[in-house]
């Protein structure tokens, strides 16, 4: 008993220590004491990917829906931030081909308001898709959300007076500190974690486990599916808004539905139904995508040009990884578990046992 309390205290201290290191590293990066702009950018991107992936896991991993609309919801968030935060005086320069819609051209919102508005609009779009589609069998959602993503992208390309078409919107104010990205990411993950561990979260999991049983236990399937789907879209919208500000520019090509596959890879890798797994996988995949970039560059070895190394090859490797994952590591890093000292402890114990087991046989 005493030992247990002691253990708990040590673990708490380690946790606080790790959190302190994390904060210290971000502070050092943020004040440009360590790292360079490239690293800061990749890390900020990781924070954004974490938000979108965790929210996708809420929908796909915890509620058992199959949504592929993340790119579309991000686009809504990104364009909302772009439209309303570009300073009024530079707008004519941005919209030099087709003048911006006169009403929108007069509205400028603070970043935080535009960000939340983007999330809310994404959630509204989710509700509008969800009302007809979530009454049907779950397979239709994947198709509907893919279609939606493409529609949003095409609308963004063509609604020139609002979105500036294929030119995109430039001059989006950049954020002065990494804490905007990491702060929002931490808050988002905590909110989703709290939701999943509430009675509503349990209802979501019940729907994932067995819809018929869930309904027989009095859970309104439609209401809870729409709820989960809309909350997921809200955070994807927030992620999109942050992305707009990170890149300082949005254009429709950033929101091809293939972007959604990155998030799919992340949640499968991290574990459908594990938040900590998703956070870890977001870091791994975002960093991995950067590392894999050399596949996209032409490569010459001993004077011979290796033909497959060209733009797009990275995605081939990426798809292969996804297939291997699905085939051999169904449960991803953590399955439905959350990372905790207990899980780590068990993991090491199991490895230890495996080794001694082999020794015994020999």
């Amino acid at each position, binding site marked *: 008993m005493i030992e247990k309390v002691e253990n708990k205290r040590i673990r708490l201290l380690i946790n606080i220590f790790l959190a302190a290191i994390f904060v210290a590293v971000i502070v050092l990066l943020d004040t440009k004491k360590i790292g360079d702009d490239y690293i800061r950018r990749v890390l900020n991107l990781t924070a954004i990917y974490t938000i979108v992936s965790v929210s996708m896991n809420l929908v796909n991993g915890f509620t058992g829906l199959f949504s592929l609309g993340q790119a579309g919801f991000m686009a809504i968030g990104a364009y909302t931030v772009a439209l309303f935060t570009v300073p009024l005086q530079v707008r004519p320069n941005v919209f030099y081909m087709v003048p911006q819609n006169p009403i929108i051209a007069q509205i400028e919102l603070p970043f935080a308001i535009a960000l939340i508005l983007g999330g809310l609009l994404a959630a509204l779009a989710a509700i509008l898709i969800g009302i007809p589609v979530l009454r049907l069998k779950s397979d239709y959602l994947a198709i509907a959300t893919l279609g939606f993503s493409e529609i949003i992208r095409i609308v963004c390309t063509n609604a020139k007076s609002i979105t500036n078409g294929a030119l995109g919107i430039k001059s989006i104010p950049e954020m002065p500190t990494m804490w905007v990205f990491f702060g929002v990411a931490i808050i988002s993950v905590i909110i989703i974690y*709290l939701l999943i561990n509430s009675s*509503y979260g*349990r209802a979501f999991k*019940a729907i994932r*486990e067995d819809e*018929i049983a869930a309904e027989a*236990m*009095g859970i309104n399937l439609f209401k809870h599916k729409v709820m989960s789907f809309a909350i997921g879209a809200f955070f994807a919208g927030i992620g999109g808004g942050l992305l707009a500000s990170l890149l300082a520019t949005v254009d429709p090509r950033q929101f091809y539905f293939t972007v959604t596959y990155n998030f799919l890879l992340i949640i499968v890798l991290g574990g459908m139904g594990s938040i900590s797994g998703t956070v870890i996988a977001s870091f791994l995949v975002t960093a991995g995508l950067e590392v894999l970039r050399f596949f996209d560059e032409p490569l010459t070895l001993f004077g011979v040009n290796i033909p497959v190394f060209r733009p797009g090859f990275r995605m081939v490797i990426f798809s292969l990884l996804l297939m291997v994952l699905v085939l051999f590591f169904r449960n991803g890093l953590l399955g439905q578990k959350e990372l905790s000292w207990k899980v780590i402890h068990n993991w090491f114990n199991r490895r230890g046992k495996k080794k001694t087991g082999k020794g015994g046989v020999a």
Partner: protein
Amino acid sequence: MSILKVENVTMQFGGVTAVNNLNIEVEEGRIEALIGPNGAGKTTAFNVITGVYTPTNGSVYFNDEVITGLTPDKITKRGIARTFQNIRLFKNLTVLDNILIANHLRIKSNFMSCTFRMPWSKREEKQMREKSEMLLEKLGLSDLRNEIAHSLPYGEQRKLEIARALATDAKLLLLDEPAAGMNPSETMELSSFIYNIRDEFNLTIFMIEHHMDLVMEISEKIYVLDFGQLIAQGTADEVKNNPRVIEAYLGVDEDA
């Protein structure tokens, strides 16, 4: 007073008439049973009562109110809960979570106040947990509360499914073959278990069962279904000696 009334219910699937002009009245506070050979339409009758299917014809009344056409979750909210012929637990969740989920239908806090752990939501969550723990205690499942549902032995899974149905605060419990797959001693235990929960929770129990010993022992009234048609009803003795029932079961092992 009858708590459940099935009136002229017919259920057709394409050309198949699974239930044909069924009339049933279950008295409040009693244990009654629905029996019949395989494919007679018993589960279909349950599915119509619980709203899984809307009947082609006829109506279902619960406490004299029409419930035909309501979705399953609404019907459960009214006070009818069920178990399934092939156990349908929330397999990867703990025993306690299975029970907690069945409490969700009465929640008053919205998702925002639950997420942000508002004091009233925390209070509600605490009450939910206390109620669930008490239920597990009463049904002798307390020690298993943190086990994953699918890791439980078969008999315990059946018990948990009943417990989960009770957690919805049901007044009428529909059990679809609760003794299926149980050995004789487990079946014996089940009959006292059913008596106990009926008295403890003031329930009415309507069950489908193939174990004739169990049915004859505990049912106060038995309905016999064959090819979707009600062919007999009455006490165990009345039904047992009914020639049509004997004929329907001819060639079918009575203990099967």
